[in-house]
């Protein structure tokens, strides 16, 4: 049984259809990348899986059970969420933020226990930010703050994490840091990741790291293609998806290691 199954899913606002008849599943320990131009409905699809929005048609099965039968709070024990850009308001300490990942396991009128604190500490160690635990998270760099969000998701102890463009606004190094953390998570703890991204090369990155990776190209209310990055991400499909001329190149990065990269050449006018 797949961890997540999306069956004939459709969603639209009153006058505007976003997607229809989407079918896919996500297995344990798999990276599932959603690619598509701005406004194609990636975030809306993720919202439906998170239970923030309700599908108009079809259904979503989590561990074989219909998502609609989950009480609020239960979904949070299956799926954690790393937002695209987190608006930082109050200068909570890093530790306070990560402890919030334990809300689904904490009663309405209580606070995180000793065990919860230990789990939060462990999550911070996994992303390598334990030394910053007492710092106000408003003082962290964008990359560090995003890793704090990943740590908060880890503290939720879910089999699946949904990330909505987790590397948006990050610089060259921090982007790679987030990707490396994801590789570790999937490799070590068999967590499944669903990730919306703007960069086809992210999918190649995971594939090159030998993770089970699949890509869905979201186009015209549906999936244009769905499969392994090396099968799906091609010059022809990118032309349809983004209207961009690209070249697929490949370079050696050490013995028997090869890194595929998609290089944008020009837009089609």
């Amino acid at each position, binding site marked *: 049984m797949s961890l997540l199954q999306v069956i004939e899913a459709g969603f639209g606002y009153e006058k505007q259809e976003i997607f229809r008849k989407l079918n896919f599943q996500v297995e344990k320990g798999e990276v599932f990348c959603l690619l598509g131009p701005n406004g194609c409905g990636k975030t809306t699809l993720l*919202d439906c899986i*998170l*239970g*923030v929005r309700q599908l108009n048609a079809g259904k979503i099965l989590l561990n074989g059970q219909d998502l609609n039968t989950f009480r*609020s*709070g*239960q*979904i*949070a*024990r299956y*799926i*954690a*969420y790393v*937002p695209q850009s*987190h*608006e930082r*308001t*109050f*200068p*909570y*300490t890093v530790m*306070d933020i990560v402890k*919030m*990942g334990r*809300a*689904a*396991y*904490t009663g*309405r*009128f*209580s*606070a*995180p226990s000793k065990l919860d604190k230990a789990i939060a500490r462990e999550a911070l160690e996994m992303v390598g930010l334990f030394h910053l635990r007492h710092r*106000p998270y*408003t*003082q962290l760099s964008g990359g560090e703050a995003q890793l704090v969000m990943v740590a*908060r998701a880890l503290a*939720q102890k879910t089999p699946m994490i949904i990330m909505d463009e987790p590397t948006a606004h990050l610089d060259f190094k921090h982007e790679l840091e987030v990707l490396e953390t994801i590789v570790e998570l999937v490799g070590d703890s068999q967590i499944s990741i669903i990730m919306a991204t703007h960069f086809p090369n992210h999918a190649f990155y995971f594939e090159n790291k030998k993770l089970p990776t699949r890509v869905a190209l979201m186009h015209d209310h549906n999936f244009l293609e769905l499969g392994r990055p090396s099968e799906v991400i091609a010059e022809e499909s990118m032309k349809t998806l983004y209207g961009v001329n690209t070249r697929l190149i490949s370079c050696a990065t050490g013995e028997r290691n090869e890194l595929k990269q998609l290089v944008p050449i020009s837009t089609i006018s």
Partner: protein
Amino acid sequence: MLLIISPLLCIFASLFIGRYPLSIDEVIRILWCKTAQLPCEVLDIKQTIVWDIRLPRAILGALVGGCLAISGAAFQGLFRNPLVSSGILGVSSGAGFGAALAIVMFSSVSSATYIFAFAFGTLAVFLSYIIGRVYDTTPTIMLVLGGVIVSSVFSALISLLKYVADPYQQLPAIVFWLMGSLATARYSDIVAAGLPMLVGIAGLLAIRWRINVLSMGDKEAHTLGVNLAVDKGLVIISATLATAAAVSVSGIIGWVGLVIPHICRMLVGNDNRVLIPASLSMGACFLILVDDLGRIITGSEMPLGILTALVGGPFFVWLLKKTKGGNW
């Protein structure tokens, strides 16, 4: 511990402050024989001053200040906005309208004033909630908008009542009520308004860690496992009970619900687990002290709403300057 002791100390200290001087020995003797129901050898007038005037006033001040500050802190977290105060959902203007209406209808301040103020204060919040309700959810921004609309409508209605009120009796009563005062505090006020205040305070204290999670915003709070409708509702109901009851006995006292949570943020940090009780305690102390100040500086009573703004305003400017380079 400090959080419990300091308001008690403030209440005790305020028993000495006023036009009629009293010694420590006298005050302690009065407190002792009144609680133990023994006959007192102190002058009757001194007994009345301590037991029937200064003590209920200090207790009410503590409750009102605590309620305004704790609700302000909770709303700041809920609305993810550090500049929000306890009146954000229109409770103050609603209560002000209720009081003014009662004054116009019954020609003087009576117990109906309190009841009307409480009823319209809660009604205003309910209206803001209804306006902010879109589909099945109440997005935070819509709630704030609802609060702004309801506040301005009730403010206009207050002006209307002032306009039609009798200018010799009713108008001064309305104006004075709106400026806030604890001068008429009696034990019956404490008993009547104390229940909703204590229920509200208890609710906010109980749910305080959840306010941290709610301050992450609706979507993130949902994905962290929070039942938004229930938890937001509980915070709003608790804060509204506390604020509406406070405003209905004291009139409109500004600044406490905004400035006190900020002082506490500087002192104890932003974790609502600590911030909420700290705001309660600090708000109680602040209002007792400001009320004492009002008794000292002028012979006649200076309305509290004026003093809190006069003390709170400059302090807030200083605070903004100071924290500019800080954690914000």
